[in-house]
């Protein structure tokens, strides 16, 4: 009995350390419960990807659930040996595109989702964070997405290139342009050139395009 417990504990430990790809292979072979470990690893990053992109917390949570449902549903289409991270982000992007295709009424959004306040932040930091958030929300979807992928999701440029279906050089150029635009917007808001009023900026929303394989 004791031995059994130890093996279980060891298995648990082994599972927590196993690479994503091995876990996904187990899910693919029918061990649905293993998906829980992958959920623990990815649901916060995915939630942040969606919430920074859409500014809508409820929608972000729904989309995260959708991603994991799709993984279950399409687990057979996961190709052994391919990076899981790239695959899950592919699913995540497509889930969002499909959502906007289904509910086109969301053609505009309110960029008003105040960033969560961190108590340890100094007042200056939290004000800067809010301005940055507002600047980010004013950017076109495509530029915002590429910034989020590279800065917050910590995807490498070659991973982003594969995800967006473009060349590595193109990704770098687009990231640089996005930074330039963010800088300008941020400084304009800061200096008061753009109204600091929260209710002023409603960006026209352009639905994103799908790239890569249908998942």
């Amino acid at each position, binding site marked *: 009995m004791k031995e059994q417990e130890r093996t279980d504990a060891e298995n648990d430990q082994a599972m927590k350390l196993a690479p994503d790809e091995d876990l996904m292979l187990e899910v693919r072979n029918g061990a649905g419960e293993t998906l829980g470990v992958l959920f623990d690893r990815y649901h916060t990053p995915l939630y*942040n990807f969606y919430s*920074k992109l859409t500014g809508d917390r409820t929608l972000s949570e729904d989309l995260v659930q959708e991603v994991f449902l799709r993984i279950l549903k399409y687990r057979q289409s996961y190709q052994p040996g391919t990076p899981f991270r790239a695959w899950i982000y592919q699913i995540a992007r497509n889930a969002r595109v499909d959502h906007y295709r289904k509910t086109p009424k969301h053609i505009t959004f309110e960029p008003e989702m105040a960033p969560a306040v961190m108590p340890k932040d100094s007042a200056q930091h939290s004000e800067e964070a809010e301005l940055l958030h507002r600047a980010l929300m004013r950017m076109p979807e495509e530029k915002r997405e590429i910034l989020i992928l590279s800065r917050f999701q910590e995807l490498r440029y070659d991973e982003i290139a594969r995800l967006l279906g473009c060349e590595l050089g193109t990704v770098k150029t687009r990231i640089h342009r996005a930074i330039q635009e963010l800088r300008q917007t941020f400084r304009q808001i800061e200096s008061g050139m753009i109204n600091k009023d929260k209710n002023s900026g409603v960006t026209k929303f352009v639905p994103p395009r799908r790239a890569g394989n249908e998942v």
Partner: protein
Amino acid sequence: MKCEQIGELLPDYLQGNLDEEQNEIVELHTAQCADCRDEVTIWKKLGLLPVEQPSAASRARFEAMLHAYQTGRSDRLSARFGRAGRAAGSNIFQWLRTPVGVVAWSAALLVIGIFAGNYFGSRPTHPVANQDEIAAMHTELTNMRQLVVLAMLQQQSASERLQGVSWSQREEHLDPQVMAALLHTLRFDGSVDVRLAALNALSRHAGQPQVHKGVLDALQEQQSPLVQVALIDLLTEWRDPDATQRLRNFEQTPNLNPTVKQRAEWAVSKLN
């Protein structure tokens, strides 16, 4: 070096991909050029945006989805491997497999059922319950469960609706009201998870004409590729005589997802 050339190096500089020499070039330039320096500053400042935590309900929702999905699958498996004589056994098996919380809940419902029975039934309470009373209590418990299912299918939260759907699978016989609610859920529920779960729940009742019609109609209405594929699979599994024509029409739908289209073609070839 000009800003333009630095701009080409900058993204790699920011992710720390440059070699020492190139790193130095960028740093020399940014020391002199305020605009380029500000770009680096902005990139660093982005770190001020906090990592947000999803709500605690998120994990519970995932568990409910996983549970509903796996229950749905094992239902289908048991349906495939011989329906006759196994229904009662698998029901008890399922009952044992359910989480403790759900068992505790059913116990609570039983107590409510007994109280409700005593209260509304207005029959004198005898110390010894006879067979009739036990049977009546069973019926009441079943009715209570159906009420709970109906109430849960109306909930705001998708995970509660999911739970409602999985509750509906407890009963061997589908109450007409519950069936109507499930069909409504299949057609109109906002969440793909819940629609899929409803479809799984309905899949056991192929014999019912309304279910049959509801699933066929749903094929034209659904927009989600997931639900579309599940519908096609179910129709193939039922070997539905009306399905071939419907599927042929369905294949012609403009802008159909290629995977779904492929699946529909496969289903038509399988049905013929």
